[in-house]
C-alpha cells in the first residue's frame, strides 16, 4: 500500500504524476528529453537499457520491468538481449562500448565518486565520445531519482511476472514516449 493517498488504479510513477501533476509535468519532460531526445549518440534502445539496468540494481521492480519492456520493444527481434544484459552484461551480445558504459552506470548507481578515469578511458577506447559518457551518467543518476521516488512512496507495482502488462507498457513507452497521465 502506498505511504500516502494516491489516485487508485494507477501504478508507479504514473500515480505520482497524477497525484502532483505540476511536478509530474517536468518529470515527464525530463524523461522524454533524456530517453527520446534526438541528439544523443546512444540509441533509444540503449538508453532504455541503461535505465532498466540501473533500476534493476536499485531493485525498483516498477522502473526495471517497464524500462526493460520498452528496451525489448525497441531492440525488436534482438529483444532478448535486454534480459541477457540484466543477468550478466559482461557476457551479453552487445558492443564493448556499451559494456564499458554499463560499468560506468553501475558505479553511478552504487557510489558516483567511484567512476574512475580508467573506466572512462576504457569506454573511449571502444569509441565512446563525450556525450556517450555524459548521457550515461545523466541517465544513471536520473533513474536513481525515479527509483527512489517510486519506491520511497511505496507506489503500486504490478507483479514482476505479469509480462502482458509490462509488454503493453513497454510498447506504449516505445511508441508514444513519455506522456503524463491526464
Amino acid at each position: 500500500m502506498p505511504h500516502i493517498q494516491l489516485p487508485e488504479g494507477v501504478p508507479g510513477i504514473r500515480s505520482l504524476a497524477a497525484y502532483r501533476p505540476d511536478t509530474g509535468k517536468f518529470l515527464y519532460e525530463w524523461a522524454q528529453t533524456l530517453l527520446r531526445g534526438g541528439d544523443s549518440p546512444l540509441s533509444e534502445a540503449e538508453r532504455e537499457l541503461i535505465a532498466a539496468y540501473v533500476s534493476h540494481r536499485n531493485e525498483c521492480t516498477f522502473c526495471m520491468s517497464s524500462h526493460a519492456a520498452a528496451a525489448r520493444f525497441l531492440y525488436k527481434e534482438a529483444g532478448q538481449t535486454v534480459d541477457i544484459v540484466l543477468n550478466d552484461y559482461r557476457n551479453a551480445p552487445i558492443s564493448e562500448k556499451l559494456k564499458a558504459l554499463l560499468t560506468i552506470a553501475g558505479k553511478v548507481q552504487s557510489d558516483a565518486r567511484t567512476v574512475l578515469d580508467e573506466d572512462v578511458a576504457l569506454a573511449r577506447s571502444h569509441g565512446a565520445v563525450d556525450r556517450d559518457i555524459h548521457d550515461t551518467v545523466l541517465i544513471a543518476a536520473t533513474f536513481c531519482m525515479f527509483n527512489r521516488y517510486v519506491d520511497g512512496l511505496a507506489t503500486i507495482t504490478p507483479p514482476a511476472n505479469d509480462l502482458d502488462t509490462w509488454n503493453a507498457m513497454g510498447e506504449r513507452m516505445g511508441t508514444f514516449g513519455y506522456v503524463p497521465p491526464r
Partner: protein
Amino acid sequence: MPHIPLPPHLPGITGLLEYRQDTAAPIRELTQLILRGESSLTFAERELIASLVSHRNECRFCTAAHSAVTGILMGENDTCDLVRENYETAPVSDKMKALLHIAAQAQRGGRYVTESAVDRAKTAGATDLEIHDTVLIAALFCFYNKYVDGLATDLPADSGYFQLLGERIAVSYGRRPEGYEHSLSHTPNTTPETH
C-alpha cells in the same frame, strides 16, 4: 579533473547544466517548483533536506551549496550544521525530524523508507503532500549528487563562491538570461554562475 571537458569557470552542477541545456530545462523547472514553489514547508526546511541528502552522499559541491543557502535563509549556520551531524538532536521541530528521517532513508534507497517512519511523520503532523515532497526532494538530490560526482566535476577555486551561489539560489534556480559565458572574476558586479 572532470571526465568530460567542461568550462573551468563553471564548477559543480553549473557546468553540467550548461553542457546539455535541453535536459537542464526541465531539471531546473522541477527544482524551482519543488524548492521554491508554494508549500507548507519553508524554503529553509526544504533546503535542509537537500543539504542532509547531499552530505550523506558525500557530495562536497552540493553540500556546500545547499548548506550556504540554508544559512542565508535562516540567518545562521548552526541549525544546518547540526542537522547534517544528527537531525534527531538538532533544534528543529519533531515534524522536521521525522521528515528528515524519511529523507535519510530515501537517500539509501527507495525501499528503505519504512511505514513506521511515515507513521511517525504523520503523527507529528506531516501531511501527505509534505511526505511526498520530502521523498521527491531527497530523490532529486540523489540525482544531483550522482550527476555532479559521476562526472568528477570541479569544486570552485574561490572559497567565497558558495556564499555568492547561495545568495543567488535563495531567490531562484532559473537560468540567468544572459547565460554564463564569463567567469565570476570577469564580472565582479554580478551574481555567480549557478543552477
